[in-house]
């Protein structure tokens, strides 16, 4: 009898003390807008979600965004094309499992536009050492991009690009409040990368030196040779980056700083620095200024004015030529800020609104049509945690 009562009590206790769910569910909806002085406007609604079980060690996340692009940039105007609109869809999925010191993850991404399709996937492995005071991670991903012409099937015309990315990182706990993360990336690209729509003016050798940075469409048309030539870049590119990320939590603020050094086989060398200082104004409100600076040396084959020679109906032009201003020497500075307000219990961060605003100035040191560009960006996010 006593034994039966004891067993019954044990069963009831087990039911009453059944462990509650450990799942953390987090969703973020976002709407952002971008515009610049080069007549490009982009609206981006986006959705992100994640679910994780911290005790079991697994997590899954995904995101989906739509870029609604309207562009009448100077490159479009120089080709006598009207303003165009385009919609891009992009999604990511990832999952990870880290029950103890070892962790594995897999991820995939897709981006689709009327004339561009990008597919990528990969995985990573990590290990926590010295009671998680050091975490090492290695990752690999493969990407396959297809570029074509709007309205023309890829089976008729397309350029393909394959991308292998290897990344390693080390997260080091420097103190009870400071974390340093070092990331190394190596990207090996092979395939066609030029844009099918990009056509470049050519100049006679005697005229090219007189072309000045920022020359207008009218000035270029008055001096260029008849006709235009398609963009052509090398079929392979090896890209390397080393990034250091520093995070320090004080009593009521967090410093986040990041610096990236980059170099590639096309001769482009860049440094990017980013600083954010998050200050807790109150238990519910935090504000932060944000500064970002990027400077780069252009690709070795980048020219302000490409020299061509027309003879007997044939065009003699440089083997590699590009009109992509992001391959040119430039520097850019971003300044802005943001804030987060938490409703409900601020410690749980169950419902928060995040607003970010920033402006970017880009100085193109050796480019046609424009010498600088101002851009503005704003985003509003709503985060809900269950």
């Amino acid at each position: 009898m006593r034994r039966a009562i004891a067993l019954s009590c044990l069963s009831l206790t087990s039911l009453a003390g059944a462990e509650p769910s450990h799942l953390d569910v987090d969703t973020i909806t976002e709407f952002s807008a971008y515009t610049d002085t080069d007549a490009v406007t982009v609206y981006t609604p986006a959705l992100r979600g994640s679910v994780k079980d911290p005790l079991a060690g697994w997590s899954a996340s995904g995101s989906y965004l739509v870029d609604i692009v309207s562009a009448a940039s100077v490159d479009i105007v120089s080709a006598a094309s009207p303003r165009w609109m385009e919609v891009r869809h992009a999604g990511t999925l990832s999952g990870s499992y880290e029950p103890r010191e070892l962790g594995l993850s897999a991820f995939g991404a897709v981006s689709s536009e009327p004339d561009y399709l990008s597919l990528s996937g990969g995985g990573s492995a990590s290990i926590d050492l010295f009671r998680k005071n050091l975490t090492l991670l290695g990752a690999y991903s493969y990407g396959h991009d297809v570029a074509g012409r709007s309205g023309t099937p890829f089976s008729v015309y397309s350029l393909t690009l394959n991308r292998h990315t290897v990344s390693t990182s080390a997260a080091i706990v420097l103190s009870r409040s400071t974390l340093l993360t070092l990331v190394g990336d190596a990207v090996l690209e092979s395939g066609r990368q030029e844009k099918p729509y990009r056509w470049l003016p050519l100049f006679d050798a005697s005229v090219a030196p007189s072309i000045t940075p920022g020359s207008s469409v009218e000035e270029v048309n008055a001096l260029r040779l008849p006709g235009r030539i398609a963009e052509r870049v090398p079929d392979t590119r090896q890209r390397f980056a080393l990034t250091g990320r520093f995070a320090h939590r004080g009593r009521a603020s967090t410093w986040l700083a990041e610096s990236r050094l980059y170099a590639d086989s096309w001769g482009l060398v860049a440094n990017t620095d980013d600083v954010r200082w998050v200050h807790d104004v109150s238990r519910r409100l935090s504000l932060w200024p944000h500064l970002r600076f990027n400077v780069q040396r252009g690709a070795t084959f980048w020219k302000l004015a490409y020299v061509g020679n027309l003879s007997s109906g044939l065009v003699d032009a440089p083997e590699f030529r590009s009109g992509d201003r992001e391959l040119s020497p430039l520097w850019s500075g971003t300044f802005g800020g943001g804030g987060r307000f938490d409703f409900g219990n601020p410690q749980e961060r169950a419902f928060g609104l995040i607003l970010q605003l920033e402006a970017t100035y880009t100085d193109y040191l050796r480019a046609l049509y424009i010498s600088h560009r101002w851009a503005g960006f704003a985003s509003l996010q709503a985060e809900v945690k269950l």
Partner: protein
Amino acid sequence: MDAKRLSLLVLVALTSACANVAPYQRGRLAHPTMSPDDAASLGQEHVHSVQEGATGGNVGASGGCGCN
């Protein structure tokens, strides 16, 4: 210096920089704002990747686009 010795040297350098912080002392390290993903905006990340010729620093899912 061969690859094995270089790897060992890097590992020693990394471990020597580590502090010995116990799990119960990680309150500040676990603060949400310590993660770069805390205030991350998908739109903002995309703008930076398109406007800058460099790449790298983010491990995980990302793809290309014909945005330039």
